[in-house]
């Protein structure tokens, strides 16, 4: 536990000093503000486009924006933020292994398990803090300009998307236990997502896959209930735990 706490402190200091923490903060704030802002600007956008649309035969009658537009933007934009997070954390483990900065600490008896746990925890902490910050900003403005009660289950739908992020970050931990570079790690994580998407094409398997959690639209409109997503959420959580735990024995055998 002592090693875990010490190393987590080191990871956070590293993120602060190399400016990544600030970058994440800015990115997630921007993503949070963007959702209600785009919703707010939609009528104006349609207005400016009205002339060109009219010439191609499309006429737009008055468009009323609701909180739903803002939340739809949230679920459209957050996967992008997730991608940025995954790419930025892709080399968190491998760059440290390659530089040899761990050697003096391991030579002092630090356990490799603590390193894996602390790095995984840091990724999850930053992702969670950033994600829920975006969520909070979107929630606040959506409620301020419109009314969040017009949208169903937005909190659960957000939880689902957050959970996919958790799983992908745990996949980084897993692939980092044997990969040599950030590129290899990202390739592995990408492959995991691709396989899930392909499997999702099979009708019966679809609702058991983590990717099922991305389908937020039926939840927001109230067509689906959170209970429909229960199995997929459990499987995602279990997969995350297995990926992170499997990294520990593999990292212990890794040549450094």
């Amino acid at each position: 536990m002592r090693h875990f706490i010490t190393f987590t402190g080191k990871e956070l200091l590293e993120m602060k000093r190399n400016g990544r923490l600030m970058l994440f903060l800015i990115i997630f704030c921007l993503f949070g503000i963007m959702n209600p802002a785009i919703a707010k600007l939609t009528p104006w956008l349609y207005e400016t486009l009205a002339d060109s649309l009219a010439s191609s035969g499309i006429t737009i009658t008055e468009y009323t924006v609701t909180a739903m537009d803002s939340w739809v933007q949230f679920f459209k934009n957050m996967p992008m933020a997730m991608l940025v997070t995954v790419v930025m954390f892709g080399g968190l483990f491998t760059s440290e292994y390659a530089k040899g900065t761990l050697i003096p600490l391991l030579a002092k008896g630090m356990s490799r398990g603590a390193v894996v746990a602390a790095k995984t925890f840091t990724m999850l902490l930053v992702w969670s803090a950033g994600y829920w910050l975006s969520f909070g900003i979107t929630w606040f403005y959506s409620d301020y300009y419109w009314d969040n009660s017009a949208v169903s289950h937005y909190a659960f739908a957000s939880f689902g998307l957050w959970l996919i992020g958790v799983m992908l970050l745990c996949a980084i931990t897993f692939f980092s236990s044997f990969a040599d570079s950030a590129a290899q790690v990202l390739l592995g994580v990408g492959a995991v997502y691709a396989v899930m998407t392909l499997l999702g094409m099979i009708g019966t398997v679809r609702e058991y896959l983590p990717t099922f959690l991305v389908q937020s639209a039926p939840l927001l409109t109230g067509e689906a209930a959170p209970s429909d997503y229960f199995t997929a959420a459990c499987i995602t959580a279990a997969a995350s735990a297995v990926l992170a735990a499997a990294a520990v024995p593999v990292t212990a055998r890794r040549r450094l």
Partner: protein
Amino acid sequence: MNVLDIAGLSKSFGSRQVLTDVTLSVPENCVFGFVGRNGAGKTTTMKSIIGLLRPDGGEISVCGERVNYGSGRTNRFIGYLPDVPEFYGYMTAREYMSLCGRVAGMNTGEVRQRTDELLGLVGLSDEKHRIKGYSRGMKQRLGIAQALISRPRLLICDEPTSALDPVGRKEILDIIKDAGRQTSVFFSTHILTDVERICDRVAFLEGGTIALSGDIEEIRRKRGNTAVEIQPEHPSDAAVIAEQFASGEVREGCFVLKNASAQDAELLMQFLLGRHIPVIRFERKEPDLEDMFMEVIGA
């Protein structure tokens, strides 16, 4: 009790056999020089001691406890300075020392006191900059300080002086010598004068095995093949002496007689006097480590 015992250590990388049956012991309070050519397997041996490499065979014990690959348990007795130490460049020396202290399980007060002591010892106490701006010598000095923070019983230094300028080298050697008063030091090098300067014991690693090891003075005595070297004023006279003393040889205008006893030296002098051969230099040469090393590696 020995702080380090290595018995029958072997390791290969693919088809390349790096170590075969390395056996050595480092007693307490001793500065032990581990000498070998580049690529002889010094770093492989050291990484095996701290459990970073899995040996193919043999056993390593530190302070009586067996070293297991991947586990850091025996490392609590060890301070390790890698050949090219890499630190977190965004930290200051003080922050890094504090990180190391906490990893080693020391409390805050202890860490602060030890950091002050050690940064003073290595001459970095006034350094406020972050490590990324450090020179190689400064990194090496910080490397020794971090290795010593938890008062290890065995300090392992992997070629601490090989990349440094003469001033930096002297500083590091002085620090290691100082450290050797409180702890055993196992340090690898290919610079023999460094070994002569600070080590009590030495082991030569050649062909993946220990070719020669022991107390430096004892080795000198055992292998004490004192040579006599005579440099005559006229180089041609060297051949004249060689005619008389057939076991000697002519080398670059000098006459050299290996394994010369005191009596041989006396006979030589009488011969020079008798023949009126003018001499620039008459020297009885104690063998240095370099000669022994060359002899061991057969160069």
